[in-house]
Protein backbone atom coordinates (compact mmCIF):
# COMPACT_ATOMS: atom_id res chain seq x y z
CA UNK A 1 0.00 0.00 0.00
CA UNK A 2 1.21 3.57 -0.58
CA UNK A 3 3.12 4.81 2.39
CA UNK A 4 0.95 7.75 3.28
CA UNK A 5 -1.92 5.31 3.88
CA UNK A 6 0.07 3.56 6.54
CA UNK A 7 -0.10 6.41 9.03
CA UNK A 8 -3.04 6.29 11.39
CA UNK A 9 -2.49 9.64 12.98
CA UNK A 10 -5.93 9.81 14.56
CA UNK A 11 -5.53 6.47 16.27
CA UNK A 12 -6.33 6.60 19.94
CA UNK A 13 -8.53 5.12 22.63
CA UNK A 14 -12.15 6.16 22.10
CA UNK A 15 -15.02 5.73 24.52
CA UNK A 16 -18.07 5.03 22.40
CA UNK A 17 -21.68 4.42 23.35
CA UNK A 18 -24.13 1.94 21.87
CA UNK A 19 -27.14 3.63 20.34
CA UNK A 20 -28.65 0.60 18.68
CA UNK A 21 -28.20 -3.15 18.70
CA UNK A 22 -29.77 -5.27 15.98
CA UNK A 23 -29.61 -8.96 15.28
CA UNK A 24 -29.29 -9.27 11.54
CA UNK A 25 -29.48 -13.06 11.77
CA UNK A 26 -28.95 -15.74 14.38
CA UNK A 27 -25.56 -14.96 15.96
CA UNK A 28 -24.96 -11.91 13.76
CA UNK A 29 -25.08 -8.58 15.54
CA UNK A 30 -24.93 -5.00 14.34
CA UNK A 31 -23.96 -2.39 16.90
CA UNK A 32 -24.43 1.27 16.05
CA UNK A 33 -22.24 3.50 18.18
CA UNK A 34 -21.78 7.15 18.96
CA UNK A 35 -18.10 7.57 18.27
CA UNK A 36 -17.16 11.22 17.78
CA UNK A 37 -13.58 11.64 16.64
CA UNK A 38 -13.26 8.03 15.63
CA UNK A 39 -16.06 8.14 13.07
CA UNK A 40 -14.71 11.20 11.27
CA UNK A 41 -11.19 9.78 11.05
CA UNK A 42 -12.19 6.42 9.62
CA UNK A 43 -11.16 5.37 6.12
CA UNK A 44 -12.51 2.32 4.24
CA UNK A 45 -10.93 -0.96 5.32
CA UNK A 46 -9.85 0.20 8.75
CA UNK A 47 -10.66 -1.62 11.95
CA UNK A 48 -10.86 -1.17 15.70
CA UNK A 49 -9.69 -3.24 18.64
CA UNK A 50 -12.79 -3.43 20.85
CA UNK A 51 -11.91 -3.54 24.55
CA UNK A 52 -14.00 -6.14 26.40
CA UNK A 53 -16.23 -4.36 28.93
CA UNK A 54 -15.42 -7.03 31.53
CA UNK A 55 -11.70 -6.49 31.01
CA UNK A 56 -11.33 -10.25 30.98
CA UNK A 57 -10.08 -11.14 27.53
CA UNK A 58 -8.00 -9.72 24.73
CA UNK A 59 -9.51 -6.92 22.67
CA UNK A 60 -11.27 -8.05 19.47
CA UNK A 61 -10.38 -6.90 15.97
CA UNK A 62 -13.51 -5.69 14.17
CA UNK A 63 -13.83 -3.86 10.90
CA UNK A 64 -15.55 -0.51 10.91
CA UNK A 65 -18.66 -1.39 8.94
CA UNK A 66 -20.23 2.04 8.61
CA UNK A 67 -18.98 5.52 9.48
CA UNK A 68 -21.25 8.48 9.06
CA UNK A 69 -21.16 11.78 10.88
CA UNK A 70 -20.15 10.98 14.44
CA UNK A 71 -21.35 7.39 14.28
CA UNK A 72 -19.87 4.10 13.32
CA UNK A 73 -21.25 0.61 13.28
CA UNK A 74 -19.72 -2.79 13.83
CA UNK A 75 -21.09 -5.96 12.29
CA UNK A 76 -19.94 -9.19 13.83
CA UNK A 77 -20.56 -12.90 14.04
CA UNK A 78 -20.65 -14.57 17.43
CA UNK A 79 -17.69 -16.94 17.23
CA UNK A 80 -16.45 -17.37 20.78
CA UNK A 81 -16.14 -15.76 24.18
CA UNK A 82 -15.24 -12.29 23.10
CA UNK A 83 -17.84 -11.76 20.41
CA UNK A 84 -20.33 -13.37 22.82
CA UNK A 85 -19.52 -10.72 25.38
CA UNK A 86 -19.79 -7.91 22.85
CA UNK A 87 -23.15 -9.27 21.72
CA UNK A 88 -24.52 -8.72 25.23
CA UNK A 89 -24.13 -4.96 24.90
CA UNK A 90 -27.29 -2.95 24.60
CA UNK A 91 -28.37 0.57 23.96
CA UNK A 92 -26.67 3.03 26.30
CA UNK A 93 -23.75 0.75 27.17
CA UNK A 94 -20.20 2.01 26.80
CA UNK A 95 -17.62 0.36 24.63
CA UNK A 96 -14.04 1.55 24.50
CA UNK A 97 -11.87 0.78 21.54
CA UNK A 98 -8.55 1.51 19.87
CA UNK A 99 -8.94 2.93 16.43
CA UNK A 100 -9.06 3.69 13.64
CA UNK A 101 -6.33 1.16 12.87
CA UNK A 102 -4.64 -0.20 9.75
CA UNK A 103 -3.94 1.24 6.34
CA UNK A 104 -7.29 0.64 4.65
CA UNK A 105 -8.23 0.27 0.99
CA UNK A 106 -6.86 2.63 -1.59
CA UNK A 107 -10.01 3.80 -3.35
CA UNK A 108 -8.20 6.49 -5.31
CA UNK A 109 -6.94 5.89 -8.87
CA UNK A 110 -10.44 6.05 -10.30
CA UNK A 111 -11.39 2.47 -10.93
CA UNK A 112 -14.35 2.53 -13.33
CA UNK A 113 -15.49 -1.03 -12.84
CA UNK A 114 -14.69 -2.42 -9.41
CA UNK A 115 -15.26 -5.92 -8.15
CA UNK A 116 -15.56 -6.37 -4.41
CA UNK A 117 -15.20 -9.92 -3.12
CA UNK A 118 -16.35 -10.70 0.40
CA UNK A 119 -16.38 -14.03 2.16
CA UNK A 120 -18.13 -14.61 5.50
CA UNK A 121 -17.32 -11.93 8.06
CA UNK A 122 -15.29 -10.20 5.34
CA UNK A 123 -18.51 -8.42 4.40
CA UNK A 124 -18.01 -6.08 7.36
CA UNK A 125 -14.78 -4.71 5.87
CA UNK A 126 -16.09 -3.67 2.46
CA UNK A 127 -19.16 -1.47 2.86
CA UNK A 128 -17.19 1.75 3.32
CA UNK A 129 -15.06 0.79 0.35
CA UNK A 130 -18.15 0.21 -1.81
CA UNK A 131 -19.57 3.55 -0.75
CA UNK A 132 -16.36 5.40 -1.58
CA UNK A 133 -16.15 3.79 -5.01
CA UNK A 134 -19.78 4.55 -5.75
CA UNK A 135 -19.25 8.15 -4.71
CA UNK A 136 -16.40 8.27 -7.23
CA UNK A 137 -18.94 7.02 -9.80
CA UNK A 138 -17.45 3.59 -10.30
CA UNK A 139 -19.59 0.63 -11.17
CA UNK A 140 -19.37 -1.74 -8.19
CA UNK A 141 -20.12 -5.44 -8.32
CA UNK A 142 -20.18 -7.21 -4.94
CA UNK A 143 -19.37 -10.92 -5.02
CA UNK A 144 -20.60 -12.14 -1.67
CA UNK A 145 -19.99 -15.70 -0.52
CA UNK A 146 -21.26 -17.42 2.59
CA UNK A 147 -21.66 -20.96 3.89
CA UNK A 148 -25.41 -20.89 3.80
CA UNK A 149 -28.42 -18.68 3.23
CA UNK A 150 -28.77 -17.47 6.84
CA UNK A 151 -25.20 -16.20 6.84
CA UNK A 152 -25.79 -13.85 3.91
CA UNK A 153 -26.45 -10.74 5.96
CA UNK A 154 -27.29 -7.22 4.93
CA UNK A 155 -26.88 -7.81 1.17
CA UNK A 156 -29.76 -5.43 0.64
CA UNK A 157 -27.72 -2.64 2.20
CA UNK A 158 -25.22 -2.99 -0.67
CA UNK A 159 -27.96 -3.12 -3.29
CA UNK A 160 -29.57 0.01 -1.86
CA UNK A 161 -26.20 1.73 -2.00
CA UNK A 162 -26.04 0.96 -5.69
CA UNK A 163 -23.95 -2.21 -5.97
CA UNK A 164 -24.75 -5.14 -8.21
CA UNK A 165 -24.80 -8.04 -5.77
CA UNK A 166 -23.85 -11.58 -6.81
CA UNK A 167 -24.41 -14.06 -3.97
CA UNK A 168 -22.91 -17.54 -3.68
CA UNK A 169 -23.43 -20.11 -0.95
CA UNK A 170 -21.49 -23.30 -0.30
CA UNK A 171 -24.72 -25.27 -0.05
CA UNK A 172 -26.64 -23.49 -2.80
CA UNK A 173 -29.42 -22.31 -0.47
CA UNK A 174 -29.10 -18.80 -1.90
CA UNK A 175 -27.63 -17.50 -5.15
CA UNK A 176 -25.13 -19.58 -7.06
CA UNK A 177 -23.84 -22.76 -5.44
CA UNK A 178 -20.08 -22.80 -5.05
CA UNK A 179 -17.28 -20.59 -4.01
CA UNK A 180 -17.42 -16.86 -4.36
CA UNK A 181 -14.19 -16.96 -6.35
CA UNK A 182 -15.87 -19.23 -8.91
CA UNK A 183 -18.40 -16.47 -9.50
CA UNK A 184 -15.61 -13.91 -9.78
CA UNK A 185 -13.73 -16.07 -12.29
CA UNK A 186 -16.81 -16.41 -14.50
CA UNK A 187 -17.71 -12.73 -14.47
CA UNK A 188 -16.53 -10.06 -16.90
CA UNK A 189 -13.17 -8.61 -15.95
CA UNK A 190 -13.18 -5.61 -13.57
CA UNK A 191 -10.42 -3.01 -13.58
CA UNK A 192 -9.73 -3.33 -9.86
CA UNK A 193 -10.51 -5.97 -7.23
CA UNK A 194 -11.03 -5.34 -3.51
CA UNK A 195 -11.38 -8.42 -1.33
CA UNK A 196 -11.79 -9.45 2.28
CA UNK A 197 -12.26 -12.95 3.63
CA UNK A 198 -10.48 -16.05 4.81
CA UNK A 199 -6.95 -16.63 3.53
CA UNK A 200 -7.80 -19.49 1.10
CA UNK A 201 -10.36 -17.24 -0.56
CA UNK A 202 -7.85 -14.41 -0.83
CA UNK A 203 -5.34 -16.81 -2.35
CA UNK A 204 -7.85 -17.63 -5.11
CA UNK A 205 -8.59 -13.98 -5.65
CA UNK A 206 -4.88 -13.28 -6.00
CA UNK A 207 -4.53 -16.07 -8.58
CA UNK A 208 -7.48 -14.82 -10.60
CA UNK A 209 -6.18 -11.26 -10.44
CA UNK A 210 -2.72 -12.36 -11.57
CA UNK A 211 -4.13 -14.43 -14.45
CA UNK A 212 -6.18 -11.53 -15.65
CA UNK A 213 -3.58 -8.88 -14.84
CA UNK A 214 -6.05 -6.98 -12.72
CA UNK A 215 -4.73 -5.19 -9.64
CA UNK A 216 -6.22 -6.48 -6.41
CA UNK A 217 -6.25 -5.21 -2.84
CA UNK A 218 -6.69 -7.87 -0.20
CA UNK A 219 -7.76 -7.25 3.40
CA UNK A 220 -6.35 -10.10 5.48
CA UNK A 221 -7.96 -11.60 8.55
CA UNK A 222 -5.93 -13.64 11.00
CA UNK A 223 -6.05 -13.94 14.76
CA UNK A 224 -4.66 -10.75 16.27
CA UNK A 225 -2.92 -10.31 19.59
CA UNK A 226 -2.16 -6.63 20.16
CA UNK A 227 -3.63 -5.32 16.88
CA UNK A 228 -1.15 -2.44 16.90
CA UNK A 229 2.11 -3.96 15.69
CA UNK A 230 3.70 -4.79 19.03
CA UNK A 231 3.56 -8.59 19.23
CA UNK A 232 4.36 -9.94 15.75
CA UNK A 233 1.54 -12.44 16.11
CA UNK A 234 -0.14 -11.63 12.78
CA UNK A 235 2.36 -11.86 9.97
CA UNK A 236 2.13 -12.56 6.26
CA UNK A 237 4.96 -13.51 3.91
CA UNK A 238 5.96 -10.90 1.36
CA UNK A 239 6.86 -11.53 -2.25
CA UNK A 240 10.59 -11.25 -2.89
CA UNK A 241 10.46 -7.82 -4.47
CA UNK A 242 8.34 -6.32 -1.71
CA UNK A 243 10.76 -7.35 1.02
CA UNK A 244 12.93 -4.29 0.95
CA UNK A 245 10.21 -1.82 -0.01
CA UNK A 246 10.17 1.27 2.21
CA UNK A 247 6.54 0.77 3.12
CA UNK A 248 7.46 -2.47 4.91
CA UNK A 249 9.98 -1.13 7.39
CA UNK A 250 9.86 -4.11 9.70
CA UNK A 251 9.45 -6.72 7.04
CA UNK A 252 13.01 -7.34 5.97
CA UNK A 253 13.86 -8.47 9.47
CA UNK A 254 13.80 -12.18 8.77
CA UNK A 255 17.16 -12.06 7.05
CA UNK A 256 16.21 -15.04 4.89
CA UNK A 257 14.56 -15.24 1.52
CA UNK A 258 11.22 -14.93 3.25
CA UNK A 259 10.12 -11.77 5.01
CA UNK A 260 7.09 -11.27 7.13
CA UNK A 261 5.05 -8.09 7.44
CA UNK A 262 2.58 -7.50 10.25
CA UNK A 263 -0.99 -7.71 9.02
CA UNK A 264 -2.22 -5.28 11.67
CA UNK A 265 0.44 -2.65 11.11
CA UNK A 266 1.62 -2.91 7.50
CA UNK A 267 -1.89 -4.08 6.49
CA UNK A 268 -4.53 -5.31 6.89
CA UNK A 269 -4.83 -4.38 3.18
CA UNK A 270 -2.06 -5.51 0.83
CA UNK A 271 -1.76 -5.46 -2.91
CA UNK A 272 -2.02 -9.05 -4.09
CA UNK A 273 1.35 -8.80 -5.83
CA UNK A 274 3.07 -7.74 -2.63
CA UNK A 275 2.41 -11.11 -1.01
CA UNK A 276 4.03 -14.49 -1.44
CA UNK A 277 1.37 -17.18 -1.74
Amino acid at each position, binding site marked *: MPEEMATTSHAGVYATRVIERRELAKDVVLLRLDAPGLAEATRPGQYVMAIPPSG*EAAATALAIYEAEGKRISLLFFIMGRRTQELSALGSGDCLSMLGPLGNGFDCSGDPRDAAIVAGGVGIASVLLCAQALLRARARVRLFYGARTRELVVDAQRFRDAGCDVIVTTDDGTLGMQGMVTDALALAPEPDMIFACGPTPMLRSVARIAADRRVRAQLALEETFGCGVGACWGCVVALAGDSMQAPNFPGAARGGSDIAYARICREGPVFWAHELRW
Partner: protein
Amino acid sequence: MVRPSLAVRLGSLELAYPTLMGSGCYGSGAEYAPFADLSKVGAIVLKSVTRAPRLGNAMPRLVHTPAGMLNAIGLQNPGIDWYLERELHKYADRPCKIIGSVAGFSVDDYAFVCERLAARDEIAAVELNVSCPNVDREGATFGCDASLTASVVRAARATTTKPLIVKLSPNVTDITAVAREAEDAGADALGVINTVRGMAIDVERWKPRLANISGGLSGPAIRPIAVLAVYEVAQAVKIPIVGQGGIETVTDALEFFLAGAAAVSIGTANFTDPRIPQRIVEELETYLARRNVASLSEIVGKANVAFSTPHQYEGDEG
Protein backbone atom coordinates in the same frame (compact mmCIF):
# COMPACT_ATOMS: atom_id res chain seq x y z
CA MET B 1 -0.17 11.60 54.33
CA VAL B 2 2.39 12.16 51.60
CA ARG B 3 2.11 10.45 48.30
CA PRO B 4 3.37 6.87 48.61
CA SER B 5 6.56 6.09 46.75
CA LEU B 6 6.36 3.60 43.93
CA ALA B 7 10.01 3.80 42.97
CA VAL B 8 11.95 0.55 42.94
CA ARG B 9 15.51 -0.61 42.43
CA LEU B 10 16.55 -3.74 40.58
CA GLY B 11 20.25 -3.94 41.28
CA SER B 12 21.56 -0.57 40.12
CA LEU B 13 18.53 0.02 37.92
CA GLU B 14 16.24 2.66 39.36
CA LEU B 15 12.68 2.86 38.15
CA ALA B 16 10.12 5.55 38.93
CA TYR B 17 7.33 3.00 38.64
CA PRO B 18 7.42 -0.69 39.49
CA THR B 19 5.90 -1.75 36.17
CA LEU B 20 7.80 -3.28 33.28
CA MET B 21 6.13 -3.87 29.94
CA GLY B 22 6.80 -7.52 29.12
CA SER B 23 9.19 -8.51 26.36
CA GLY B 24 7.42 -9.32 23.11
CA CYS B 25 4.21 -7.69 24.29
CA TYR B 26 4.99 -4.01 23.91
CA GLY B 27 7.11 -3.74 20.79
CA SER B 28 9.53 -0.90 21.38
CA GLY B 29 6.83 1.25 22.95
CA ALA B 30 6.18 3.29 19.78
CA GLU B 31 3.33 0.97 18.86
CA TYR B 32 1.51 1.83 22.10
CA ALA B 33 2.37 5.52 22.24
CA PRO B 34 -0.97 6.61 20.72
CA PHE B 35 -2.88 4.68 23.40
CA ALA B 36 -0.84 4.89 26.57
CA ASP B 37 1.28 7.39 28.46
CA LEU B 38 4.77 5.92 28.32
CA SER B 39 5.95 8.32 31.00
CA LYS B 40 3.78 6.40 33.48
CA VAL B 41 5.61 3.17 32.80
CA GLY B 42 8.64 1.90 34.72
CA ALA B 43 10.45 0.37 31.77
CA ILE B 44 9.83 -1.27 28.45
CA VAL B 45 11.48 -4.63 27.90
CA LEU B 46 12.21 -4.92 24.19
CA LYS B 47 11.41 -8.01 22.15
CA SER B 48 14.14 -10.62 22.59
CA VAL B 49 16.98 -10.26 20.11
CA THR B 50 19.31 -13.01 18.88
CA ARG B 51 22.74 -13.18 17.26
CA ALA B 52 21.45 -14.01 13.79
CA PRO B 53 18.24 -12.68 12.27
CA ARG B 54 15.24 -14.95 12.82
CA LEU B 55 12.22 -15.22 10.62
CA GLY B 56 10.11 -16.66 13.38
CA ASN B 57 7.43 -19.31 13.07
CA ALA B 58 4.84 -19.74 10.37
CA MET B 59 1.29 -18.59 11.01
CA PRO B 60 -0.84 -19.13 13.02
CA ARG B 61 1.23 -17.78 15.86
CA LEU B 62 -1.52 -16.97 18.35
CA VAL B 63 -4.54 -18.71 19.83
CA HIS B 64 -6.92 -17.33 22.42
CA THR B 65 -7.62 -19.79 25.26
CA PRO B 66 -9.72 -19.53 28.44
CA ALA B 67 -8.45 -16.50 30.38
CA GLY B 68 -5.27 -16.49 28.34
CA MET B 69 -3.53 -16.98 25.06
CA LEU B 70 -0.91 -19.19 23.50
CA ASN B 71 1.83 -17.63 21.42
CA ALA B 72 4.56 -19.11 19.27
CA ILE B 73 6.14 -16.15 17.55
CA GLY B 74 9.43 -17.99 17.27
CA LEU B 75 11.58 -15.03 18.29
CA GLN B 76 11.21 -13.19 15.01
CA ASN B 77 13.83 -10.44 15.05
CA PRO B 78 16.33 -8.81 12.70
CA GLY B 79 19.40 -10.02 14.55
CA ILE B 80 21.68 -7.99 16.79
CA ASP B 81 23.60 -6.18 14.02
CA TRP B 82 20.63 -4.70 12.24
CA TYR B 83 19.08 -4.01 15.62
CA LEU B 84 22.04 -1.97 16.85
CA GLU B 85 22.55 -0.17 13.57
CA ARG B 86 19.04 0.66 12.56
CA GLU B 87 16.67 0.29 15.50
CA LEU B 88 18.09 1.07 18.86
CA HIS B 89 18.82 4.77 18.33
CA LYS B 90 15.11 5.35 17.75
CA TYR B 91 14.37 4.31 21.33
CA ALA B 92 16.67 6.85 22.95
CA ASP B 93 14.02 9.47 23.59
CA ARG B 94 11.43 7.25 25.29
CA PRO B 95 10.14 8.86 28.49
CA CYS B 96 10.87 5.64 30.40
CA LYS B 97 13.74 3.21 30.78
CA ILE B 98 14.47 0.66 28.06
CA ILE B 99 15.58 -2.87 28.92
CA GLY B 100 17.05 -5.11 26.26
CA SER B 101 16.15 -8.77 26.10
CA VAL B 102 18.59 -11.39 24.85
CA ALA B 103 17.82 -14.87 23.59
CA GLY B 104 20.24 -17.46 22.31
CA PHE B 105 20.84 -21.03 21.29
CA SER B 106 24.26 -21.48 22.88
CA VAL B 107 26.06 -19.95 25.83
CA ASP B 108 28.27 -18.13 23.38
CA ASP B 109 25.24 -16.62 21.61
CA TYR B 110 24.06 -15.06 24.85
CA ALA B 111 27.48 -13.61 25.65
CA PHE B 112 27.88 -12.27 22.14
CA VAL B 113 24.53 -10.49 22.01
CA CYS B 114 24.66 -9.35 25.59
CA GLU B 115 28.02 -7.68 25.20
CA ARG B 116 26.95 -5.74 22.13
CA LEU B 117 23.60 -4.74 23.51
CA ALA B 118 24.97 -3.70 26.88
CA ALA B 119 27.49 -1.44 25.22
CA ARG B 120 24.68 0.91 24.22
CA ASP B 121 23.49 3.86 26.25
CA GLU B 122 19.87 3.41 25.24
CA ILE B 123 19.83 0.20 27.26
CA ALA B 124 19.35 0.56 31.02
CA ALA B 125 19.50 -3.14 31.81
CA VAL B 126 19.59 -6.51 30.11
CA GLU B 127 17.08 -9.30 30.52
CA LEU B 128 18.10 -12.85 29.66
CA ASN B 129 15.33 -14.91 28.10
CA VAL B 130 16.51 -18.43 28.87
CA SER B 131 13.37 -20.17 27.57
CA CYS B 132 15.17 -21.19 24.41
CA PRO B 133 16.42 -24.58 23.25
CA ASN B 134 20.15 -25.21 23.50
CA VAL B 135 21.34 -26.45 20.11
CA ASP B 136 24.50 -27.88 21.69
CA ARG B 137 22.54 -30.18 23.98
CA GLU B 138 19.84 -31.75 21.88
CA GLY B 139 17.56 -28.80 22.29
CA ALA B 140 17.23 -28.94 26.09
CA THR B 141 15.83 -25.60 27.18
CA PHE B 142 18.42 -23.49 29.01
CA GLY B 143 15.95 -22.31 31.60
CA CYS B 144 14.89 -25.87 32.43
CA ASP B 145 18.32 -26.77 33.73
CA ALA B 146 19.86 -24.95 36.68
CA SER B 147 23.47 -25.41 35.59
CA LEU B 148 22.82 -24.44 31.97
CA THR B 149 21.06 -21.34 33.24
CA ALA B 150 24.05 -20.58 35.44
CA SER B 151 26.42 -20.88 32.48
CA VAL B 152 24.37 -18.41 30.52
CA VAL B 153 24.26 -15.97 33.41
CA ARG B 154 27.99 -16.25 34.09
CA ALA B 155 28.81 -15.69 30.44
CA ALA B 156 26.50 -12.67 30.26
CA ARG B 157 27.76 -11.31 33.57
CA ALA B 158 31.29 -11.31 32.24
CA THR B 159 30.32 -8.99 29.41
CA THR B 160 28.63 -6.17 31.28
CA THR B 161 28.13 -4.32 34.53
CA LYS B 162 24.61 -3.31 33.57
CA PRO B 163 21.88 -4.83 35.70
CA LEU B 164 21.07 -8.38 34.56
CA ILE B 165 17.54 -9.71 34.94
CA VAL B 166 17.23 -13.46 34.41
CA LYS B 167 13.77 -14.49 33.33
CA LEU B 168 12.96 -17.94 34.63
CA SER B 169 10.94 -20.61 32.92
CA PRO B 170 8.09 -22.16 34.95
CA ASN B 171 8.37 -25.41 33.02
CA VAL B 172 10.56 -27.06 35.63
CA THR B 173 10.16 -29.36 38.59
CA ASP B 174 11.79 -26.91 40.99
CA ILE B 175 12.07 -23.28 39.99
CA THR B 176 13.85 -22.35 43.22
CA ALA B 177 16.85 -24.48 42.24
CA VAL B 178 17.22 -22.57 38.98
CA ALA B 179 16.66 -19.28 40.81
CA ARG B 180 19.45 -19.98 43.29
CA GLU B 181 21.93 -20.88 40.57
CA ALA B 182 21.04 -17.76 38.63
CA GLU B 183 21.61 -15.65 41.74
CA ASP B 184 24.95 -17.31 42.46
CA ALA B 185 26.01 -16.82 38.86
CA GLY B 186 25.57 -13.08 39.22
CA ALA B 187 22.01 -12.13 38.32
CA ASP B 188 20.86 -8.79 39.73
CA ALA B 189 17.18 -9.67 39.55
CA LEU B 190 14.93 -12.52 38.44
CA GLY B 191 11.92 -12.41 36.15
CA VAL B 192 9.31 -14.88 37.43
CA ILE B 193 7.71 -16.31 35.28
CA ASN B 194 7.97 -16.64 31.52
CA THR B 195 5.10 -18.40 29.70
CA VAL B 196 3.93 -21.94 30.50
CA ARG B 197 4.10 -24.49 27.67
CA GLY B 198 0.75 -25.38 26.17
CA MET B 199 -1.12 -26.40 23.05
CA ALA B 200 -4.53 -26.12 21.44
CA ILE B 201 -6.04 -28.31 18.74
CA ASP B 202 -8.43 -27.41 15.96
CA VAL B 203 -11.09 -30.09 16.28
CA GLU B 204 -12.53 -29.51 12.83
CA ARG B 205 -9.26 -29.71 10.94
CA TRP B 206 -7.59 -32.21 13.30
CA LYS B 207 -4.45 -30.12 13.52
CA PRO B 208 -2.61 -28.09 16.14
CA ARG B 209 -3.91 -24.52 16.14
CA LEU B 210 -0.37 -23.12 16.20
CA ALA B 211 1.98 -23.75 13.29
CA ASN B 212 4.68 -24.46 15.87
CA ILE B 213 2.38 -27.07 17.52
CA SER B 214 3.13 -25.86 21.04
CA GLY B 215 3.32 -22.33 22.40
CA GLY B 216 3.64 -20.29 25.54
CA LEU B 217 0.56 -19.73 27.69
CA SER B 218 0.18 -16.25 29.18
CA GLY B 219 -2.59 -14.19 30.74
CA PRO B 220 -4.75 -14.55 33.88
CA ALA B 221 -4.99 -18.33 33.43
CA ILE B 222 -1.38 -18.68 34.63
CA ARG B 223 -1.54 -16.13 37.43
CA PRO B 224 -1.90 -18.64 40.28
CA ILE B 225 1.11 -20.56 38.91
CA ALA B 226 3.13 -17.35 38.71
CA VAL B 227 2.17 -16.11 42.18
CA LEU B 228 3.31 -19.40 43.73
CA ALA B 229 6.57 -19.29 41.78
CA VAL B 230 7.27 -15.78 43.06
CA TYR B 231 6.35 -16.79 46.61
CA GLU B 232 8.73 -19.74 46.54
CA VAL B 233 11.58 -18.00 44.72
CA ALA B 234 11.36 -15.03 47.10
CA GLN B 235 12.17 -17.37 49.95
CA ALA B 236 15.08 -18.92 48.07
CA VAL B 237 16.99 -15.84 46.92
CA LYS B 238 17.91 -12.35 48.12
CA ILE B 239 17.90 -10.51 44.81
CA PRO B 240 14.73 -8.69 43.71
CA ILE B 241 12.04 -10.39 41.65
CA VAL B 242 10.04 -9.03 38.73
CA GLY B 243 6.71 -10.82 39.10
CA GLN B 244 4.68 -11.55 36.00
CA GLY B 245 2.02 -13.77 34.55
CA GLY B 246 -1.55 -12.62 34.05
CA ILE B 247 -1.50 -9.23 35.76
CA GLU B 248 -4.54 -7.19 34.68
CA THR B 249 -5.56 -5.17 37.73
CA VAL B 250 -4.07 -3.56 40.80
CA THR B 251 -5.32 -6.52 42.84
CA ASP B 252 -3.40 -8.89 40.60
CA ALA B 253 -0.25 -6.76 40.90
CA LEU B 254 -0.64 -6.66 44.69
CA GLU B 255 -0.74 -10.44 44.82
CA PHE B 256 2.73 -10.44 43.29
CA PHE B 257 4.14 -7.71 45.55
CA LEU B 258 2.78 -9.46 48.63
CA ALA B 259 4.22 -12.76 47.38
CA GLY B 260 7.65 -11.17 47.21
CA ALA B 261 8.05 -9.33 43.91
CA ALA B 262 9.82 -5.96 43.99
CA ALA B 263 8.38 -5.03 40.60
CA VAL B 264 5.89 -6.49 38.16
CA SER B 265 5.76 -6.96 34.44
CA ILE B 266 2.63 -6.52 32.36
CA GLY B 267 2.42 -8.37 29.08
CA THR B 268 -0.75 -9.83 27.65
CA ALA B 269 -2.97 -7.36 29.53
CA ASN B 270 -1.84 -4.68 27.09
CA PHE B 271 -3.70 -6.61 24.40
CA THR B 272 -6.84 -6.29 26.49
CA ASP B 273 -6.49 -2.60 27.18
CA PRO B 274 -3.33 -0.48 26.86
CA ARG B 275 -4.56 1.78 29.65
CA ILE B 276 -4.04 -1.01 32.18
CA PRO B 277 -0.41 -0.22 33.16
CA GLN B 278 -1.21 3.39 34.00
CA ARG B 279 -4.39 2.39 35.85
CA ILE B 280 -2.38 -0.05 37.95
CA VAL B 281 0.17 2.53 39.12
CA GLU B 282 -2.58 5.03 39.93
CA GLU B 283 -4.59 2.50 41.91
CA LEU B 284 -1.45 1.26 43.60
CA GLU B 285 -0.90 4.76 44.96
CA THR B 286 -4.48 4.88 46.19
CA TYR B 287 -4.17 1.48 47.83
CA LEU B 288 -0.96 2.34 49.64
CA ALA B 289 -2.31 5.72 50.73
CA ARG B 290 -5.49 4.12 52.09
CA ARG B 291 -3.42 1.71 54.15
CA ASN B 292 -0.94 4.38 55.24
CA VAL B 293 2.00 2.70 53.61
CA ALA B 294 4.68 5.20 52.66
CA SER B 295 6.52 3.08 50.14
CA LEU B 296 5.67 0.12 47.98
CA SER B 297 8.80 -1.65 49.18
CA GLU B 298 7.23 -2.00 52.63
CA ILE B 299 4.64 -4.49 51.43
CA VAL B 300 6.95 -6.66 49.33
CA GLY B 301 6.76 -10.24 50.56
CA LYS B 302 4.28 -9.44 53.30
CA ALA B 303 2.13 -12.48 52.56
CA ASN B 304 5.10 -14.70 53.29
CA VAL B 305 3.73 -15.48 56.69
CA ALA B 306 2.38 -18.92 57.34
CA PHE B 307 -1.36 -18.87 57.53
CA SER B 308 -2.65 -20.03 60.85
CA THR B 309 -6.11 -21.02 61.92
CA PRO B 310 -7.30 -22.79 65.02
CA HIS B 311 -7.38 -26.12 63.23
CA GLN B 312 -4.39 -25.75 60.95
CA TYR B 313 -3.18 -29.06 59.66
CA GLU B 314 0.00 -29.64 57.77
CA GLY B 315 -1.46 -31.30 54.76
CA ASP B 316 -0.81 -31.03 51.11
CA GLU B 317 -2.55 -30.16 47.92
CA GLY B 318 -5.05 -32.48 46.21
